[in-house]
């Protein structure tokens, strides 16, 4: 029911947008089908919905401008319930029954890896715009995959570069989620920061179980290490709990927090955001992007359509579909082999920046990472990031040698 409804809404929206904006007529070949197998319910629901909204706007824009190779784009939306087995099932059904040309939409790392495996097996292009595990680039890479946002390692590297520039921070702690993402992020952050600042002392990392909301014991244990700053790869409820429970321990007077802080987190914190000493890593904060006509136009259109500001997820999903369209244009076809060759060659000017490219070796886009300070400012009813520093994607990407070696080791 939900699936059909969503699908209908998406198709309807795409159609009305196309009619309203361009009134284009399309060739008879039928639409380019984008299979949007997204985590619309379950733990990833909020992120996936924003991603879907971004993709809807991209599809509407592409259609208004004549579609992909003269064919309209159609989003076929399915819910994976944030479950890997369901994701694989849905991906398979989209490919075999709906004959989709490209698969996307995924948010959770586990579902992403499951869908990527199906894409590799059935040789249908698949790109991730929200989920960002580097395992899809390295150990579990398959040649029909790419991702259009910085992966988790790149984000941790950006955090290390940012922390390295604070000479007064000499003792660093880490408080992460106790699963793959938390552990690899802490390892990557520590490794990069050690080379940048050999003088820094690192305390033993502390890990909290995934989804933990009673963070007081972890906060106390972290503060006992007397850190100048705490690198915290936490998200969702655990991060929210640190921001709310931390002040009771004087956390934000005694140390600094460097953590993932996308637009939706900033919004959900609202007035509860500590006044000082919170630094956020973000993928596409709309307020910190270069305010080109494309960016302001997108933000306005998004706000008109969905009555809210676009989150990082909406922007990277938008960029993701537009990048696919650019690759198809270059390839002159949506044939999987032709698309994959074009993905490695095309350069795309996106909302995040101009000159976005995908490295053929691992399907990783040179997407930038933003780090800034969470601050309340006039004009927004939620805190935004200020003093934002943009880290270019290319220098954050693991070297080709590193990837080849990691793949060899994994075998």
């Amino acid at each position, binding site marked *: 029911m939900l699936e059909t409804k969503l699908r209908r809404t998406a198709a309807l929206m795409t159609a009305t947008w196309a009619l309203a904006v361009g009134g284009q007529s399309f060739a008879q070949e039928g639409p380019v089908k984008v299979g949007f197998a997204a985590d619309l319910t379950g733990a990833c629901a909020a992120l996936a919905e924003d991603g879907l909204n971004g993709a809807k706007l991209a599809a509407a824009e592409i259609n208004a401008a004549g579609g992909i190779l003269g064919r309209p784009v159609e989003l076929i939306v399915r819910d994976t319930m944030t479950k890997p087995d369901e994701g694989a099932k849905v991906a398979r059904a989209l490919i075999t029954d709906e004959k989709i040309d490209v698969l996307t939409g995924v948010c959770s790392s586990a579902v992403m890896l499951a869908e990527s495996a199906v894409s590799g097996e059935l040789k249908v292009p698949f790109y991730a715009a929200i989920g960002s595990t580097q395992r899809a680039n390295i150990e579990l890479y398959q040649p029909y995959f790419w991702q259009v946002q910085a992966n988790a390692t790149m984000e941790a590297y950006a955090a290390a570069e940012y922390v390295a520039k604070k000479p007064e921070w000499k003792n660093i702690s880490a408080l992460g989620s106790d699963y793959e993402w938390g552990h690899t992020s802490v390892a990557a952050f520590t490794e990069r920061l050690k080379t940048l600042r050999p003088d820094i002392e690192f305390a033993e990392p*502390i890990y909290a179980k995934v989804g933990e909301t009673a963070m007081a014991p972890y906060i106390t*244990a972290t503060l006992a290490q007397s850190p100048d700053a705490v690198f915290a790869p936490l998200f969702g409820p655990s991060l929210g709990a640190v921001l709310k429970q931390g002040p*009771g321990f004087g956390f934000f007077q005694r140390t600094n927090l460097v953590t993932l802080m996308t637009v939706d987190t900033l919004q959900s*914190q609202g007035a509860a955001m500590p006044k000082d000493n919170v630094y956020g890593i973000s993928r596409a904060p709309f307020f910190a992007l270069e305010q080109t006509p494309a960016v302001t136009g997108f933000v306005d259109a998004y706000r008109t359509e969905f009555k809210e500001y676009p989150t990082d997820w909406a922007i990277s999903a938008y960029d993701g579909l537009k990048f696919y369209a650019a690759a198809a244009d270059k390839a002159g076809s949506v044939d999987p082999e032709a698309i994959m060759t074009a993905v490695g060659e095309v350069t795309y000017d996106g909302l995040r920046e101009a000159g976005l490219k995908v490295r053929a070796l691992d399907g990783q886009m040179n997407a930038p990472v933003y780090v800034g300070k969470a601050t309340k400012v006039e004009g927004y009813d939620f805190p935004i990031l200020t003093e934002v520093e943009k880290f270019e994607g290319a220098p954050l990407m693991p070297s080709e040698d590193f990837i080849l070696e990691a793949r060899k080791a994994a075998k």
Partner: protein
Amino acid sequence: MFWIQLVNGLMEGMTLFLIASGLTLIFGVTRIINFAHGSLYMLGAFMTYELVPLIAPGTLGGFFAAVLIAGLAVSVLGVVFEMLALRRIYGADGLMQLIVTVALVLILRDAVRMIWGPNSLSVPMPDPLMGALQIGQSYFPLFPIAVFAAGLVVVGAMIWTIYFTRAGILLRAGTDDRGMVALCGVNEKLIFTAVFAAGAFLAGLAGGLAAPYGEVNHLLDTTVIVSAFIVCVIGGLGNLYGALAGALVVGITKAIGVMYFPRLSMVLIFLIMALVLIARSMGRQGGSAR
């Protein structure tokens, strides 16, 4: 640090107790394992989110009034659910209970998602409870201390109700032998409805009290129900004092565990649970057994 962790553990334990007490109370009398208890907790949190800005925002009184009203609203919903659905399945087997209460979990989750959306919301803390009590170099957060105090009030009120009121006598009698209570001419249905209302009230109250200390979203239900079950298993399902002891044991074990065995603190809790289950099966009957 040991003392701060001990206090952290007590605080978490009290929140756990507030959640588990309703679950255990309902089971004790009606023998229904209410899987929707976490959903009622979640509703309490969302109601509090709506009410806090309306009633003297920022003040202590306003916050507690909002939480109280939220608890009562959830209690009313609980009564409706009990009268419409549960009442028909008291005699039925466990599977039927599972189906009916899990159905409520799914309905409430989808309803909450439709009304409030999938994004996390934030309930502001009352201003006087924002800070910390600083003793020497140690900080003790005020908000959980206040929740702890509120929890003690609830415990006191429960003990008083159970031992010194007619409702309490009927409740104890109902737990011991409901057939006998019915034979004495007491309306058994009314007791069940009242108990379910009280249990739902406790869930809503707990959700409201905990709301400002974390995020409020439509996934709270499952997060909470698992911890509530752990507490009830340790304390004995149906046993109120057991729930209190179980909750404090879980809270303290976790907090102290993080300090000494950071990688094992969750394992420790399950280990305790396993030991309790083994000990209980070796002869001594738990409070829940009839």
